[in-house]
Structure formats: structure tokens, C-alpha cells
């Protein structure tokens, strides 16, 4: 299993569009941007709705369950901050509540060989700093 204990991750810098996402994550809630006009849920947050060009956007909690859409296993140790974790699985998750919205994450609490397209995953939260908590994913039970 990848050893993440010695990894120093780059710290996300929220901006005016993304701050509600990180505020929710700090509370242990996965909240994605939703269009009030057409109901479309999208990620990453954007200035307009990518479906109807609406500008009335809000953030709402979504269920943190979905499937691995795609993944890569990182072996390269060019960035020494991640070297202790290689090989590690960087995954892209598509949530049941947000088809088409793709969230990057790591597959935690499992061997990297467990990463497969279509495998069910659920959200967990990894505290990075007092201000930033990262949504992460682990294999879903059952």
C-alpha cells in the first residue's frame, strides 16, 4: 500500500469560484456546483453552467459515492514530495449524483493494484491544514 505519511501535498488555493467547495470539504461534506436554472451539477467549478450557460450557480451537497472513471499509477519520482508514495493511484471519479463531473483523487486504504475503471468508491476526507481538507476516495463497501 502506498505510504502517504511522508508526502507533502501542494495546498489548494481557493478562489471566489471554488471557495464553497473547500468550505464544505472542511466540514466533511462534498458539495459541487449546481445550476439553479437547469439543475446541472458540474466540477471543477466554472463561471457559467457548462450545460445551459446559466450564471445562477450554487453549491449543494452530493452523495460521495460513485465509480472510478479512469486512473493512472504513478511510478515517476520527479517530484520528491511524492516519492515515498510511489507507486500510487491517482484516480478520476464520476459521482452517481453528478454524471460527467470528474473529480481527481487518490485511492486510499487500498493497494494501488485495486484501481480499475468502474470500481465503486466512496468519499473520505484528509485534513491537510486548518483551512484545507481534501476529498479523497476509498473502495466502497459491498
Amino acid at each position, binding site marked *: 500500500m502506498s505510504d502517504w505519511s511522508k*508526502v507533502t*501535498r*501542494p*495546498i*489548494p*488555493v*481557493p*478562489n471566489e469560484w*471554488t471557495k464553497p467547495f473547500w468550505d464544505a470539504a472542511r466540514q466533511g461534506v462534498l458539495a459541487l456546483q449546481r445550476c439553479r436554472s437547469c439543475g446541472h451539477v*458540474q*466540477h*471543477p467549478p*466554472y463561471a457559467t453552467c*457548462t450545460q445551459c450557460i446559466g450564471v445562477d450557480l450554487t453549491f449543494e451537497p452530493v452523495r460521495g459515492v460513485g465509480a472510478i*472513471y*479512469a*486512473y*493512472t*499509477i*504513478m*511510478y*515517476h519520482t*520527479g*517530484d520528491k*514530495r*511524492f516519492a515515498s*508514495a510511489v*507507486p*500510487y493511484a*491517482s484516480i*478520476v471519479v464520476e459521482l452517481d449524483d453528478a454524471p460527467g463531473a*470528474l*473529480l*481527481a*483523487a*487518490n485511492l486510499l486504504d487500498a493497494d494501488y493494484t485495486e484501481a*480499475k*475503471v*468502474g470500481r465503486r468508491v466512496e468519499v473520505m476526507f484528509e485534513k*491537510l491544514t486548518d483551512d484545507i481538507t*481534501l476529498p479523497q476516495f476509498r473502495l466502497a463497501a459491498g
Partner: protein
Amino acid sequence: MWDNRCKIAVSGVGYSKVSRTADRPLAAHALDAVRDAVADSGLRMQDIDGLATYPELPATGHAEVDGISIVSVNCMMAMLKLPALTWHIQVGTTNIGGAVQQATNALLAGVCTYAVVWRAMHNPAGTYQNLPGVYAPGAAQFTGPYGFGGPGQGMAVAYTRWLETNNQSRDKMATLAVTQRKHTQHNPHAYFYGTELTREDYFASRMVAYPFCLFDCDIPVQGAVAIVLTTADRARDLKPKPAYIAGYGQRLHFETAGRIGSLSSYMEGGSSSAKLTWERSGFSPKDVDVAQIYDGFSASVIYGLESYGFCKEGEALDFIQDGRIELDGDLPLNTFGGSLGTGRIHGLWHIIEGALQASGRAGSRQVKDANVSFVGASAPIVTGTTFIFVGDPY
């Protein structure tokens, strides 16, 4: 069909030495390539009145320093001091193929007569693709914290998606790497000229970002290539046999920033660009005699072959087997070795090879009776452009 088909042609082509490290300022490489291309056409430098490039440094986390890590139009003009310059551009929303297309448009508009396009690529010291620093701002806030760095990983995730939804095996990609390296042995300008690659080498190589092993990735190098474009009537008066531009296209599919891993963005980028190229030229994939498809990472060839219409989705790794992409195969592919053979110089070298094959100037790697020559000049996802060159105008 396009009214302007075959009205503009590639004439001369030029190369600098390709080296692993930045042994000289990049400006010197670019200058060598431009001089070589102008000489190949039999022109004098003072005849050149148009300049175009795409002066980007794809290595992340390194400074763009003009003349050292990029070569802008400003840098080139400061060196050449062309007395007759009437037109220039640097493109941003397309890769180098867009600079070639803009030069084509400028020649059609009559605002210049001999345009030079170059692509100069720097290999910085240290790690090529760096993750964000201590902080991850902008689009990287959703990727950098998870160890997603440069384009290699971005393309790798789309590759696992492709492999597993199509129930395919990455082992089949060895054919691409080995065949292209074989082609490379006919290209003395290429970085890997003189270095063979076997299937065993491919399977034994270290993994970089699964499913990409070392030989799925083009090697970062320092070097430059260049071409001279001019109108068809002028090109016919020059030394080399012209390669006529029968049609071109740009990708028309756009994605919001920071979205990662979407296979559809490669496919829709490629098909939208190719559709324009087929319509304008009047050709279809079955008419193509030889193809160059951008291969900075091997999987880009899959997305290209499928989205441009050479084979069905999910079938590209089967399509390239059984000798089909050899020099005497049904679709000779990346006949100059591709980026996997030349080193990371981006798509202008694919354009050069497309032109050389169309005009019968490809030497010992010339595909017999090649006329319709297709080029996909960059990864189809965001900055993709496509071209058809022909040797016989119609």
C-alpha cells in the same frame, strides 16, 4: 471542397541538431533550422517576408526566457533583421499546426510571399514536468494535491479509460513503439537514429505513469525544425518539389479548464478537426497513402486513428498490428519515427514528414507512390490541427 486547395505549398524544410541537453541557447537551434529550410528552398534569407511560430514551453514549472527556453517571433526577427518582413504571428489557441495554418491564410491573402514557420523546443535541466509548488492555485487546486502533474498523467488516465472500457491490452502498443523506432533508422536528424528498440526492450522498460512505460513517452530534447511556405506558383519555381496543402482543420471542441481524464475531449477534438480536413480536401481516410499522427505520448496515436476516422473506436491497437503501419503497409504511420523517434519537438516535424512524403522527398523511408499524405499535428484534445498534403495538385 475548398476553393483554396493546393494554392499554398510547403517548399523547404530544415532541422537543427537535436540534443538531449541545452548545450546551446535555443535561439541557435532555431536559427539553424530556419537557415536550413530557407537553403533547402534555394531562397536567400532576405526573400523571407513572413514569420510564424508557437513559442510555448510545455515543461511545467520552468521559466519562459526568450532565446533560451522559447524562441518568439521577436527573438527570431531580432536575429534575422529581415529587410522585407510584411507579416508575422504567434499562435496560442492551437499548437504549431495553427501557425502553419495562419501562414497559409496570410499567403492566400497576399500579405506575404515566403513565410517561415519554426518550432523550437527546450529541454530544461531537472524534472521536465513539475507539480505545483507549495500551493496549487487555479485549475491545479483540484489536481496538484493528488499528485497529478503534467500532460503525461492527464493522457494516462484517458488511456486507462480507453483500455478498460474496450477490454484492450497495453502490450499491443509495443508494435507502435518498435515500428516507429524502425522508421527512425531512416531519419538521420532524429535523436534515436542509430538506436534500435526491440519488443523485449519495450516490455522490460520502467513504468512512468501506468499505462505509460518509458518508451510510450517522447524523450525531452533541445532542438528546432522549420519550413518555408509559399504560393503554389512560386513554389513550382523553387528547388524542391512542392507539397500542396489540400485541406486543413482545427479542433472545434472546447472544455472548461481543469477537467481531467475525459476521453471524449480527445475524440471530439480530433473528429471535429478531421471533418473539416476531409470536407475541404475531398478525400476520406481510405484515400490516404501515408499518415503522420502526433505521438508525444503513444496513446495520442490511438485517439488520432479513431477520431480522424482511420478505424472504429476501441480498435486502434488492433489496427496497427500485422505490418499495417510499416513503410510498405496499408497505412504507413509516423514514417520519420514520430516524436518517439525524433525526440520531443512537437508537431511541426509531423508536418514536415507529411510534406516530404507527398512530394516524394522522404529518401530511404519514402512510401512508394505516396500522394495523399495526412497529418494530425498535435494531441487532438485541446490544440489539435490536421492537414492533407498532396504531391499532385487537383
